[in-house]
């Protein structure tokens, strides 16, 4: 059932078994998982089914530190959330991403990849992915010409991505699930229902109700047995910090961890690989038919020996990549629709310019786009702004801070790739200028993130290690949970959506168990 909250009068009390706040990939995956159960699900969305500029304003905020995109346009406040922008790239984290690495400060996860494995497979359902198989051999059987470069397999492996059928190109999750959710008898979807406060009992070990504003100047209350924050890593942290009437530093923030350890994926052009001779393969092309993508990755033993972060190199034809303006320069409009238009325009222009190259060695040159995790950094964080949204809730500010380990890792990954392709006798690599000086820890202004927000409500075995526990429940508040990439301790190299949906489904299972036990 769908209810436009704008039509509701003040002091309405909405009641259900669980309340999911946010309809992006995390929130919708949980809602779909609860469909056709005997439980009443309240699903809250701040926006409507279409883009609404006035709703989008609540995502505004200032950024300091490493240059970043305008916060307002990095996400979408509407049904389906930021999946409306999503490129659909899915690949699971590696085992090493969950391991404590003594060379990566604050990298200790309280769970392992095995804990998440069954949910990765389940996550393929809402994201409409192919079989849960990320072995190159499997995909080579489906497509004849996925030949890998003859590289040392003890050093480099081919990491497979699948491309989702519910990406932004196809209308995102909205297109796929709007009707299904509306028709679900046990789900009440409220649009234009913006969370403005989370109220606990005394002494704040349980949430009693949440307050929502319906954009018609009415405040409504939602009461449920369990509450799930699924608004994205920035908004989840913002609302925990802003719900500070009972807890001075915000909910779940007794140890000053909420908002800290904000992470992004570095997605940066780092080098050019010039093949000495043509190498016939379709392995490194976007394969729209197979919904497949591949990048060069380093073995975990290499990462350990080198004491570097995890990262992969995707290949883009240099004749084209040289003309692509860095996304961070193009995506600077506060209006996400304008920023999307600008980025497509820049890609079209690059394609046009690339036509000037039609012969010579450059035709077999490929630019490495390195996709790399950021090391968890407590100073990279979300805080509350002095500026407020239309309902008087402080906006979020971001201080994005990168570290020398990030820079060294980015450089080493590319140096190792250069050595390996040289060893194989297939290519030579030219590092981009910003990686040449080994004493330079800085990042250029053109450094792209992936619009991936992670780590602001990190998981930890105890309250002084993390905001949420191993089940994604906020430490000390027994019915408040966080779904999404904010729970990541480290960010892995792959795009975050598949993993965050796996976490959301794991949380969903946990709450089902809890509700059964509690009733």
């Amino acid at each position, binding site marked *: 059932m769908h209810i436009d909250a704008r039509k509701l009068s003040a002091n309405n009390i909405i009641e259900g078994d669980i309340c999911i706040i946010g309809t992006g990939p995390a929130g919708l995956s949980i809602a779909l998982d609860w469909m056709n159960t005997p439980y009443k699900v309240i699903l809250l969305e701040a926006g409507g089914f279409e883009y609404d500029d006035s709703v989008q304003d609540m995502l505004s905020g200032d950024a300091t530190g490493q240059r970043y995109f305008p916060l307002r346009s990095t996400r979408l406040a509407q049904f389906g959330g930021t999946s409306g922008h999503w490129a659909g790239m899915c690949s699971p984290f590696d085992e090493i991403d969950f391991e404590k690495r003594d060379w990566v400060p604050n990298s200790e996860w309280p769970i392992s990849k095995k804990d998440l494995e069954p949910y990765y497979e389940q996550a393929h359902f809402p994201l409409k992915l192919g079989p849960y198989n990320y072995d190159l051999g499997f995909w080579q059987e489906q497509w004849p010409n996925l030949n890998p470069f003859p590289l040392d397999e003890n050093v480099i492996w081919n990491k497979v991505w699948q491309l989702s059928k519910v990406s932004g190109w196809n209308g995102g999750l909205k297109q796929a699930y709007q009707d299904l959710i509306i028709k679900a008898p046990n789900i009440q979807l409220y649009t234009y229902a913006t969370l403005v406060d989370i109220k606990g009992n005394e002494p704040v070990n349980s949430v009693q109700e949440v307050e929502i504003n319906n954009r018609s100047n009415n405040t409504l209350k939602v009461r449920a047995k369990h509450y799930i924050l699924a608004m994205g890593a920035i908004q989840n942290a913002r609302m925990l910090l802003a719900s500070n009437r009972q807890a001075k530093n915000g909910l779940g923030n007794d140890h000053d961890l909420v908002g800290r350890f904000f992470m992004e994926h570095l997605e940066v052009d780092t080098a050019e690989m010039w093949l000495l001779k043509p190498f016939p393969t379709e392995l490194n092309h976007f394969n729209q038919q197979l919904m497949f993508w591949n990048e060069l990755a380093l073995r975990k033993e290499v990462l350990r020996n080198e004491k570097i972060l995890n990262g992969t190199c995707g290949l883009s034809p240099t004749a084209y990549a040289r003309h692509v303006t860095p996304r961070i320069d193009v995506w600077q409009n506060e209006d996400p629709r304008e920023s999307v238009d600008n980025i497509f325009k820049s890609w079209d222009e690059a394609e046009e310019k690339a036509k000037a190259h039609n012969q010579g*060695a450059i035709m077999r040159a490929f630019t490495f786009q390195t996709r790399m995790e950021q090391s968890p950094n407590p100073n990279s964080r979300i805080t509350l702004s002095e500026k407020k949204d239309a309902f008087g809730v402080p906006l979020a500010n971001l201080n994005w801070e990168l570290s020398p380990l990030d820079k060294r890792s980015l450089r080493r990954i590319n140096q190792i790739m*250069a050595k390996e392709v*040289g*060893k194989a006798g297939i290519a*030579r690599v*030219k*590092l981009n200028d910003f990686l040449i000086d080994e004493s330079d820890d800085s990042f250029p202004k053109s450094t792209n993130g992936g619009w991936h927000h992670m780590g602001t409500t990190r998981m930890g075995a105890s309250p002084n290690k993390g905001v949420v526990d191993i089940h994604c429940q906020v430490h000390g508040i027994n019915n408040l949970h966080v779904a999404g990439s904010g729970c990541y301790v480290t960010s892995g190299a792959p795009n975050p959506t598949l993993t965050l949906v796996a976490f959301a489904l794991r949380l969903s299972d946990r709450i089902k168990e809890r509700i059964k036990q509690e009733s």
Partner: protein
Amino acid sequence: MKRRNFMLLVSAGVVAVSVPFVNQVYFDIPDYDKESIFPQFLSLIWDEESISDIGAKYAAKFPEESRERSLAKALFSDSASQSKDKLLALTQSDFFNGNLVTIDGWVLSKTEARQCALHYIMNQTKA
């Protein structure tokens, strides 16, 4: 033959015979095949100008290897007649052994970078 012409011819002969000898003994430059200095792998992706340019940058970065003598010794010290194949093999083994150098961002084998430098210096000499 007049005595003067005879003396000139003898002198020229002595010079012709002694230049390689002096090169080898006095300047200590190994005898090598000038054709072999062109870096085979890099010539697949660069033109001669690019090779010279990288060579100049290598010589500037490593001034102790900015003369024919030092470069030829470094490249050809194992044998008086290094073949192209041998240099290719050395280039490969540099990548295996991590004997690499970064010039202008390019991650190169030390051997092929030296070839570039020697190529550059020989071209300078010709000019």
